[in-house]
């Protein structure tokens, strides 16, 4: 008897017992017809796609929402978004979406969303009321506070487009003062610097795509800086289209830094010296041929290179290495931002950056003020401090706090002063620290439940349209304002915000444009180039007054933005805890990263708890030793610690993200951190080969497996490691597309994470990152297949390494035999508490306890593509079938296709000189070719 017959008999015997004892429940499922068929062409069983705009961060990427029909209560169907995808052709993100954008669908279904309007009762607790009661209370308080001579104010996060216009109308008519908007990343110093340089306090669009040399100083262009998804898209185009070199300077370690061709670590606060060095280099070698006035050039101070070297901590030859590309590059681009801008000398650094850019001669080609970001309403930390003072002076009556969380970002004194307002009205989708001090909390609908629009840049308007009715008793901010106007006795022509938005679009762009926008999602206005001119006199004056900064005292605590949580707002989403931070590979928890030197000196290991204290701060956090980080720098992400007492820069109003004057003490306690990567070095395993096609010993033709023959398709993938930036958007997309459960910290600590695709990090000795997306390799001779006793794992005729869930009995032999560790076992049944069950992709089974699961190359999408192709009696065309990971990848690093089609992109890339397969010497014939980076040395 062979093993299959044995299992078969076992099945027969136990199966028949089951039949006799249990029976099957039948006849309970309903088949519900429509009352009236839908008019928008929805075909039952097939998804619809609607264009809309992401509101998870201020970048406002264009999205396509995939909507499925699902049965709800009372014999009805509801429509529910199941996946967000980038809108193809959108001027910002062009069909891609970042990790936060992908995860933002979970915000809609978040079980902890605010579900009803809440009013604080006499007992100090918030309890649900009706909307009308809440409105009446607000209207009464507004009148009362005006009577007492108090000011009523409206504070929001960055708001653009129709909503901003409506807030203006609302505030004017209700005699409310609209305050400058509160954003943690206000780019105040950058705007101020452009005011000094060009008389235009704006945030321009950077044309990274057209640069051949990019120098970024502190700017986290891939994480949060201004328009990160757009930067990634442009970076990829630049790399593909022409010679492109990228240097990054930073005092810490960021994902952006890990991706640059060269990374220069400087002492904190020494960027000004470095920029002055570059300026004096350009003073001698600029291409402006004397168009810049002599006075201006003369005002640039000359520093001896030894001084620059001493201050920055960079050797003289490293400094000249940094300056050299300016001589050979046609279009150099310099961007300073992030931690280098949010420091005491941030304005100086940004003005000097503007000068470097101007003298390099490519300012007009690469920096576009006509397509500037709409940030004019965003305030600075000065505005927040002023509000705090006014609150303390009892000048404020009613304060509206809409979609903003100043309490968790500002020092604790702000929370105290907020209590002095007569009435605090909060508008939010979830309970935040700010909402906890509010007297009335109005629950906001998610942007997928409401109408609206966004104007991230001067030339881009992007529509927000609802794809489902609000899940809870929530309303859109626009509707609330219109209803408050009515409650305040004002005559209001618009009954809904939808009317307001559509009317505004019709007036601004015309009926035809609106029709087009409802299909495409965005409207791009043609704008003329607006060439700004350097205010030479002003800049010369500025430079002559320049005071060179003192060194920043170490040890220093640096608060840095992270790709997962932005300024902390996205930490509400459990998925963004489940997916590890790509820099540290830690998933859950809070930690402080320290350098290897610090760890050695203080005898710290991963998980050792330390206490950081300064005059107004006391923090206790576990340590993560971060290779690549240098010196006495301690790193913490925004969102990990609330109400940090960060100082404000006097001249710009930028919040300084450094806290120095620290004492560090080891507490002796240990916390277990879920660090998902065992080691970031290659340990000689050759996952990234160097040199490419080196002397790897192949087993060659000696194989015991029969040769695999494929007829129509051999699905395969090519992943370009030169383009992969480790942003983990693919991971988030995979989670949502494939109904992968979130298992939590406890499971992560035991190594039971469930991600089907992960970002492996293998670092160079000098901290440059090599990111390897690791997923099922769909091996031609897969080691997992022959060990499965029940044929749940098998190889199909199209090259897919299939896993049949209801055949799987959970022996886990396959997982043990997989050299790539990409198979995941369900140790438990995972819950999808309502309304999260509505988020499930109906095309993918939800796996239960005891089942092995893994990447399927999105077989559900393969089915759909083959179905469409069969309808037209043809084969699937190259490019029409894209798995979720490849679709969302901002840099287009992942290419999927049919290896048998010799014209396909995947065939071309798999036969590139850079192509190699991981563990090829095992003879597993994997279907994924990785394309190694050029000109790289890798520690092995």
């Amino acid at each position, binding site marked *: 008897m062979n093993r299959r017959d044995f299992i078969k008999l076992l099945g027969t015997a136990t199966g028949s017992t089951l039949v006799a004892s249990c029976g099957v429940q039948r006849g309970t499922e309903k*088949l519900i017809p429509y009352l009236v068929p839908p008019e928008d062409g929805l075909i039952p069983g097939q998804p619809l796609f609607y264009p809309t705009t992401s509101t998870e961060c201020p970048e406002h990427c264009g999205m396509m929402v995939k909507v499925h029909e699902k049965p709800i209560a009372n014999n009805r169907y509801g429509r529910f978004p199941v996946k967000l995808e980038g809108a193809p052709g959108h001027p910002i993100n062009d069909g891609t979406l970042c990790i936060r954008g992908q995860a933002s669908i979970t915000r809609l279904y978040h079980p902890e969303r605010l579900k009803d309007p809440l009013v604080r009762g006499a007992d100090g607790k918030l309890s649900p009321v009706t909307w009308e009661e809440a409105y009446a209370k607000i209207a009464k308080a507004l009148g009362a506070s005006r009577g007492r001579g108090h000011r009523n104010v409206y504070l929001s996060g960055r708001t653009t487009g129709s909503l901003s216009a409506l807030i203006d109308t609302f505030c004017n008519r209700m005699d409310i003062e609209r305050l400058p908007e509160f954003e943690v990343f206000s780019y105040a110093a950058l705007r101020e610097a452009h005011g000094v340089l060009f008389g235009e306090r704006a945030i321009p669009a950077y044309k990274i795509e057209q640069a051949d040399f990019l120098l970024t100083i502190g700017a986290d262009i891939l994480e949060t800086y201004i328009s990160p998804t757009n930067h990634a898209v442009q970076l990829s185009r630049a790399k593909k289209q022409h010679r492109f070199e990228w240097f990054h300077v930073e005092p810490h370690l960021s994902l952006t830094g890990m991706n640059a061709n060269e990374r220069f670590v400087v002492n904190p606060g020494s960027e000004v010296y470095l920029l002055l060095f570059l300026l004096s280099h350009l003073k001698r070698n600029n291409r402006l041929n004397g168009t810049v006035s002599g006075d201006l050039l003369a005002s640039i101070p000359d520093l001896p290179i030894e001084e620059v070297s001493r201050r920055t901590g960079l050797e003289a030859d490293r400094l000249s290495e940094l300056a050299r590309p300016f001589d050979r590059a046609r279009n150099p681009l310099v961007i300073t931002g992030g931690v280098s801008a949010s420091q005491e000398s941030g304005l100086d650094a940004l003005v000097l950056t503007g000068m470097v850019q101007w003298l390099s001669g490519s300012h007009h080609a690469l920096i576009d003020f006509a397509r500037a970001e709409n940030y004019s309403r965003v305030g600075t930390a000065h505005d927040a401090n002023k509000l705090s003072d006014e609150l303390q002076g009892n000048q404020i009556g009613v304060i509206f706090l809409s979609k903003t969380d100043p309490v968790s970002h500002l020092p604790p004194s702000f929370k105290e002063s907020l209590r002095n307002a007569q009435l605090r009205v909060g508008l939010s989708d979830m309970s935040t620290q700010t909402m906890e001090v509010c007297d009335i909390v109005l629950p906001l609908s998610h942007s997928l439940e409401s109408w609206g629009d966004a104007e991230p840049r001067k030339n881009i308007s992007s529509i927000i349209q609802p794809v489902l009715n609000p899940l809870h008793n929530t309303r859109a901010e626009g509707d609330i304002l219109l209803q408050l106007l009515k409650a305040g006795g004002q005559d209001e022509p618009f009954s809904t915000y939808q009317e307001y938005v559509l009317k505004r679009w019709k007036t601004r762009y015309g009926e035809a444009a609106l029709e087009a926008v409802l299909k495409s999602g965005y409207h791009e206005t043609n704008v003329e180039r607006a060439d700004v001119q350097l205010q030479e006199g002003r800049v010369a004056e500025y430079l002559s007054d320049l005071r060179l900064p003192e060194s920043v005292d170490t040890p220093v605590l640096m608060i840095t933005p992270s790709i997962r949580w932005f300024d902390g707002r996205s930490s509400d989403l459990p998925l963004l805890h489940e997916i590890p931070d790509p820099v540290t590979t830690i998933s859950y928890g809070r930690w402080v990263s320290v350098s290897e030197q610090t760890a050695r000196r203080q005898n710290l290991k991963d998980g050792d708890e330390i206490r950081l204290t300064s005059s107004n701060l006391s923090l206790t956090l576990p340590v993560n030793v971060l290779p690549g980080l240098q010196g006495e720098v301690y790193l913490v992400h925004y969102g990990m610690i609330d109400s940090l007492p960060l100082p404000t820069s006097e001249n710009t109003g930028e919040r300084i993200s450094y806290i120095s004057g620290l004492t560090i003490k080891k507490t002796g306690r240990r916390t277990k951190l879920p660090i998902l990567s065992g080691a970031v070095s290659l340990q000689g395993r050759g996952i990234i080969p160097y040199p490419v096609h080196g002397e790897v010993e192949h087993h060659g033709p000696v194989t015991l497996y029969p040769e695999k023959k494929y007829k129509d398709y051999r699905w395969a993938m090519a992943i370009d490691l030169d383009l992969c930036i480790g942003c983990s958007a693919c991971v988030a997309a995979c989670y949502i597309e494939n109904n992968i459960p979130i298992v939590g910290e406890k499971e992560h600590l035991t190594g039971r994470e469930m991600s089907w695709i992960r970002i492996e990090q293998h670092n160079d000795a000098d901290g440059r990152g090599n990111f390897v997306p690791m997923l099922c390799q769909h091996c031609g001779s897969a080691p997992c297949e022959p060990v499965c006793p029940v044929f749940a794992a098998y190889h199909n005729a199209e090259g897919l390494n299939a896993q049949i869930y209801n055949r799987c009995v959970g022996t886990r032999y396959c997982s043990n035999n997989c050299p790539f560790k990409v198979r995941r076992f369900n140790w438990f049944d995972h819950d999808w508490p309502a309304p999260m069950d509505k988020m499930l992709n109906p*095309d993918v089974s939800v796996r239960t306890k005891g089942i092995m699961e893994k990447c399927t190359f999105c*077989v559900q999408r393969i089915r759909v593509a083959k179905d469409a192709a069969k*309808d037209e009696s043809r084969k699937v065309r190259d490019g029409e079938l894209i798995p979720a990971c490849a679709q969302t990848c901002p840099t287009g690093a992942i290419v999927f296709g049919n290896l048998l089609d010799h014209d396909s992109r995947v065939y071309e890339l798999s036969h590139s000189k850079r192509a190699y397969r991981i563990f090829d010497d095992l003879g597993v014939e994997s279907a994924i070719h990785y394309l190694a980076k050029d000109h790289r040395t890798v520690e092995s």
Partner: protein
Amino acid sequence: MLKRIVIPALALGPPALLALLVLGGGSMPCPNPPIQGVFGRLDPRCWFTSAPAPTQPIAFSHKIHVSRVGLPCTFCHIYVDKSRRAGVPSVQKCMSCHSVIAVDRPEIKKLHRYWNDKEPVPWIKVHNLPEHVYFSHKRHIKAGLECSACHGEIKNVSVVRQVSSLKMGWCVTCHRAKKASIDCLTCHK
């Protein structure tokens, strides 16, 4: 084949034998309705026949609509060649005829009540597939299969019941015979 099942069943003792007896008891009649008892379980005797014919909220007769009136299946099941699901006609579709036809019949009056109450008719689903199965009506229709190949002679019955087992073996037999794909991933999602 029988020997291969009976021998290990003997080895496994009385429960398996009992099960075999029950399974083999095809001669015992399957009651109608086949769902019995407080727990709503399928009567074990109906395992082979697997033919629940649930009582529908309206005693709709396919026989009248197809055989007597002559409507093609796709008149009502409009998505059958467009989607995985065949689709049930909307109440509006029923009303497009029945606002004038046979309005005095009791069953049609039931339909009117649903329509006036703006309630969809809660039909009981007769053909159920497990959740892990991907099935597309469209592919089967486009391959030239008749509806009756799986659903039986619907045109002759007034109460619909399941006539095919809809079990994997039944699917695969046909797939083999018609040289359709028998790759697991074709149907297992």
